[in-house]
């Protein structure tokens, strides 16, 4: 009996410490790839923001300890049992979660995926952080904003076979003649997302193109390597490094001037938008190709043929906000 009591007691203590706050009319579960990740903690912060803005919403922020599909399925099962109103998930596997999420939908739960998607039959809609064209345009704009008279830029990519990288670079090339006519792309090199190779490629670019004004690296590894080279070779102010970077990794190069600005998806806006969308699904809005949803302060999205949509252009980090975001992710 003592054992039973102590067990019940410890579970009860755990429950009161961790259980959700007072009951709300709508319960939206924000399921992430893994807990203890700054990116997703920031998304949860955004989700709470949206919940407070709409009112009457309880956000259940949850995820497995390790990033596995099986762990997320266990969580989805327990959310089905709790009969939550909506599940917004960043999936560890686009296919393995489909049966579990289908079951959730059969029991009347609204399901949407965000960040990392689920195959179309396993969700009602999917929210991408951004899309190829927006990213392509943003990486050129990041360099062009600080080159009012135009100039030479080079791209330091990851591997030459990386599908997403190539799509972004193609999109960038497509947008240049029209929107940035005085920017001249001199070369594209590949650092394979390896620090040493990226460093060598960056050095090579600087040696080959003495008039280079900016290096654009749409990879978090490459951008740090390039900024380090510019810092080490005393080229701060002459060559501006930009691209897609994690604020926490990149803060020092904004601070020392090797870079004016970089960009990446904003997790706070992602979590915020996911809750906005879930709320509209709960209220009965149909997710169908062509449907337009408002995502509050972030703007609005229109669903494509696969019921997915892009949230916004990558979010820009510069001297004014890098301090704040470097603490988040």
């Amino acid at each position, binding site marked *: 009996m003592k*054992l*039973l009591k102590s*067990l*019940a007691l410890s*579970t*009860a203590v*755990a*429950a009161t410490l*961790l*259980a*959700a706050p007072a009951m709300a009319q709508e319960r939206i579960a924000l399921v992430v790839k893994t*807990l*203890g990740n700054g990116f997703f903690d920031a998304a949860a912060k955004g989700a709470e923001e949206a919940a407070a803005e709409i009112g009457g919403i309880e956000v*259940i922020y*949850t*995820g*497995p*300890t*390790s990033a*596995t*599909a*099986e*762990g997320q*399925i*266990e*969580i989805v*099962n*327990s959310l*089905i*049992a*709790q*009969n939550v109103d909506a599940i917004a998930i960043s999936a560890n*596997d*686009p*296919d*393995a979660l*489909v*049966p579990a999420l289908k079951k959730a939908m059969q029991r009347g739960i609204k399901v949407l995926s965000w960040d990392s998607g689920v195959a179309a039959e396993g969700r009602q809609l999917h929210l991408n952080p951004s899309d190829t064209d927006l990213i392509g345009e943003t990486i050129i704009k990041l360099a062009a904003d600080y080159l009012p008279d135009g100039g030479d830029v080079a791209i330091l990519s990851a591997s030459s076979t990386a599908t997403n990288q190539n799509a972004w670079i193609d999109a960038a090339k497509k947008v240049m003649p029209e929107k940035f006519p005085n920017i001249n792309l001199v070369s594209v090199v590949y650092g394979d997302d390896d620090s040493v190779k990226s460093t060598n490629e960056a050095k090579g670019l600087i040696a080959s193109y003495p008039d280079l004004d900016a290096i654009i690296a749409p990879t978090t590894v490459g951008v740090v390597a390039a900024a380090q080279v510019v810092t080490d070779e005393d080229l701060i102010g002459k060559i501006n490094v930009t691209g897609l970077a994690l604020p926490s990794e990149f803060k020092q190069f904004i601070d020392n001037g090797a870079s004016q600005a970089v960009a990446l998806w904003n997790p706070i806006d992602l979590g915020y938008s996911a809750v906005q969308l879930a709320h509209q699904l709960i209220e009965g809005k149909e997710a169908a190709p062509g449907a337009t949803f408002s995502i509050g302060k972030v703007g609005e999205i229109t669903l494509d043929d696969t019921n997915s949509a892009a949230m916004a252009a990558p979010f820009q980090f510069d001297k004014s906000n890098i301090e704040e975001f470097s603490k988040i992710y």
Partner: protein
Amino acid sequence: MTDVTPEARHIPDRLDSPLRAAILSWPALLLVVAVGLFVANSFLSPYFLSPWSLSDATFNFTEKAIIALAMALLIISGEIDLSVAAIIALASTMMGLALQFGVGTPGLVVIGILTGLFCGMFNGFLVTRLGLPSIVVTIGTMSFFRGISFIVLGDQAFKGYPPAFGFFGQGYVWWVVSFEFVLFLVCAVLFYVLLHRTNFGRHVFVIGNNPMAARFSGVRVERVKFILFCLTGLMSGIAAVLLTSRLASTRPSIALGWELEVVTMVVLGGVSILGGSGSIPGVVIAAFIMGLVTFGLGLLNVPGIVMSIFIGALLIFVIALPIVFRMIRERRA
């Protein structure tokens, strides 16, 4: 001279009465914990006591528990198989490959189970014929089996399993009673009979207690161990069929890290990690306890990190309890 007849001395053949032994036994203790958790869960979450919730909860542990049954025998015999999760990955990959060649549902099931069996035979061969320590062998095959899956699949996935195949991991036999759960109960009975009611089962205990004595008593130690590895592989193959069916897809990262959860179940079930003792009822109840804890905490939306702390604490608590009891008893005596 007088005859001195020595007084007849009574030598007990067991220390406790059978009833007392049963009450103080490991499965009984676990049963109390399980019932306690069940009651606690019912009070803590209004969603717990619903037939569908409880049915959903069983899916979280049945596949692991099916492997744990065979793993229990293997650990009792003094060996271990850490490659079980990798066997699931390889068996699932083979099923996915077969699917690409248009193999139907019965063929897929046979291929999954046979792949598991072959992996088990491979482990068994390395351990019993070459005399290598099983922990080293199976750490090796753990990378080896999953490595093959990674080579075949890379970052791709096999999907498009036929709808009929979905029955094994998602289907229900009757109302809320899933096929997986029924299969687990049937396997549990079979393994109970095998371990506790047959000569083979006695051999397993003898080997675990003293392999040398077992050998001198005429027990074919190598053959028994080989069969146990095959059984573990076979059960992993069955688990692979169930899990692949439940996920309706195959990725090389499938069932990642399950070997430790299976071993945790077995140890929590009262099987000595050093071999020689343990029981199937204990393992079955331990499986339910793991399921109750994770599902119960899940219903309260306790983060996974806290959940693993809880399971770790439960494991230490349940393992330490009888030892502490014994210490108190000895001090009193």
